[in-house]
């Protein structure tokens, strides 16, 4: 069952990534056919790409509550080749709910509200300003930050404690916002699990369609532990720096944090996951330095927001 769900996950994601990724195109073509077979076993027709659950089709099973079942929702996105904002939000919600299951939110209303104010303001300067952005500081002494699809952004208390200004916070949040804007997590899931899941699918039968949605959670958490590829991290660094600068902040908050994290010893348990899932901060600084060059020379009047910065109790 788990393998099947993984397969379905990767199918959703591979299709959502769309053209431009050769791998995704190959796999999605192969999987579309397989998926129809899977539906047959459930004795339901393949849904139409655009139509809502078609009441005209006599064979279509009507969801009991008048609500579309998770399977139907995912199927629609599969067959249409797109992940709707709602579906992305659903995937993100489950990954985020999973993460706070491991590390709950810090019990500090003022802190959480402050992070949401800064984060939402920075997100407003991105290409997905109207996403339902949510930000949270989670109980962990690790130095790390996470993003899940749909606009869920987290940073650990350990990382927050290392920050010295609002511009640094804006830079870190900007980096994570960049991941969401570019849908890096969705692309990763599709890339890394496609082939393996395809093999597993062939020997599986479906019993409970809700399980496939449930299993998105597990996959999402694994993704957090595995990390993205280097280029995605470098890209998010460039985006984060720009978003923070656009928001009126001093542009160098993010590189300042990277330099600070870079001073952590390799053996420090608080950075082991970060170092495992990201290029070394020194390498990221080097890449940012190359990308910025003299391009930010004219952007001079940004705030650091030191005095406004919320200090942990």
């Amino acid at each position: 069952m788990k393998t099947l769900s993984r397969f379905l996950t990767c199918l959703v994601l591979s299709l959502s990534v769309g053209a431009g990724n050769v791998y995704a195109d190959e796999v999605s073509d192969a999987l579309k056919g397989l998926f129809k077979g899977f539906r047959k076993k459930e004795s339901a027709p393949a849904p139409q790409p655009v139509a809502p659950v078609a009441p005209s089709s006599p064979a279509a099973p009507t969801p009991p509550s008048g609500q579309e079942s998770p399977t139907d929702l995912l199927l629609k996105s599969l067959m249409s080749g797109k992940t709707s904002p709602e579906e992305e939000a659903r995937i993100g919600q489950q990954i985020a709910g999973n993460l706070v299951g491991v590390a709950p939110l810090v019990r500090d209303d003022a802190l959480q509200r402050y992070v949401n104010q800064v984060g939402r303001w920075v997100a407003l300067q991105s290409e997905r300003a109207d996403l339902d952005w949510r930000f949270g500081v989670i109980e962990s002494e690790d130095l790390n930050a996470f993003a899940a699809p749909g606009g869920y952004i987290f940073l650990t208390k350990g990382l927050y404690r290392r920050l010295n200004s609002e511009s640094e916070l804006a830079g870190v949040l900007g980096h994570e916002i960049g991941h969401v804007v570019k849908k890096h997590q969705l692309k990763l899931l599709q890339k890394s699990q496609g082939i393996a899941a395809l093999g597993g699918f062939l020997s599986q039968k479906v019993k409970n369609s809700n399980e496939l949605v449930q299993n998105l959670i597990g996959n999402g958490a694994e993704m957090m532990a595995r990390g993205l590829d280097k280029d995605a991290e470098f890209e998010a660094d460039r985006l984060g720096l720009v978003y923070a600068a656009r928001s009126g902040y001093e542009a160098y908050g993010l590189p300042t944090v990277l330099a600070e994290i870079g001073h952590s010893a390799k053996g420090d348990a608080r950075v082991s996951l970060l170092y495992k899932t990201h290029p070394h901060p020194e390498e990221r600084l080097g890449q940012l330095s190359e990308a910025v060059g003299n391009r930010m020379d004219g952007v001079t009047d940004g705030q650091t927001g030191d005095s406004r910065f919320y200090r942990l109790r």
Partner: protein
Amino acid sequence: MTRIWMFLLALFSLPALATPGTMIKDDTLRAQPAAAAAGVGQAAKGAAVEILGRQSGWTQIKAGGVTGWVRVLSVRGEAPAGGLADVGAALQKRDSSKVVAVAGLRGLSEEELKGARFNGQELARMDHYRVDRGGAQQFAMMANLRTRDVPHLPKPESKRSQPGGGASSNSMLDGF
């Protein structure tokens, strides 16, 4: 006790002194923290320098006996002897409340994330703190944060970029 305070004082006064740094890229040392300021020297990538201070997008350094300003992203600070992380850990242990927090949490290991269980209550709590567009704009207004047009940064070209290809002054710098 006095010794501890003197120790702490010494620690906290470190950043005020010159700290060791390494050049991330070649840059010109300038008399003032501005691109238009006169050049007073050069520092090459990899060169060991002293970091003296910082102002907006500029870092004041001393390289080869010359003092001047380079772009913040041209130089990287090294951890002071002993390491910042170690200092942080040592200070943390003095705060009993933080020790509890560390002991109570196992950290975010890969295994833990894989075995994670959905927590809808925490997620609902997160929704509760959400700030909408209007709220964010109001925050920015109170903070006097003004938006600026900043174009996206291109992905850096590989080192062996064609000379004369990209016309930006940056790629010209890289050519040297």
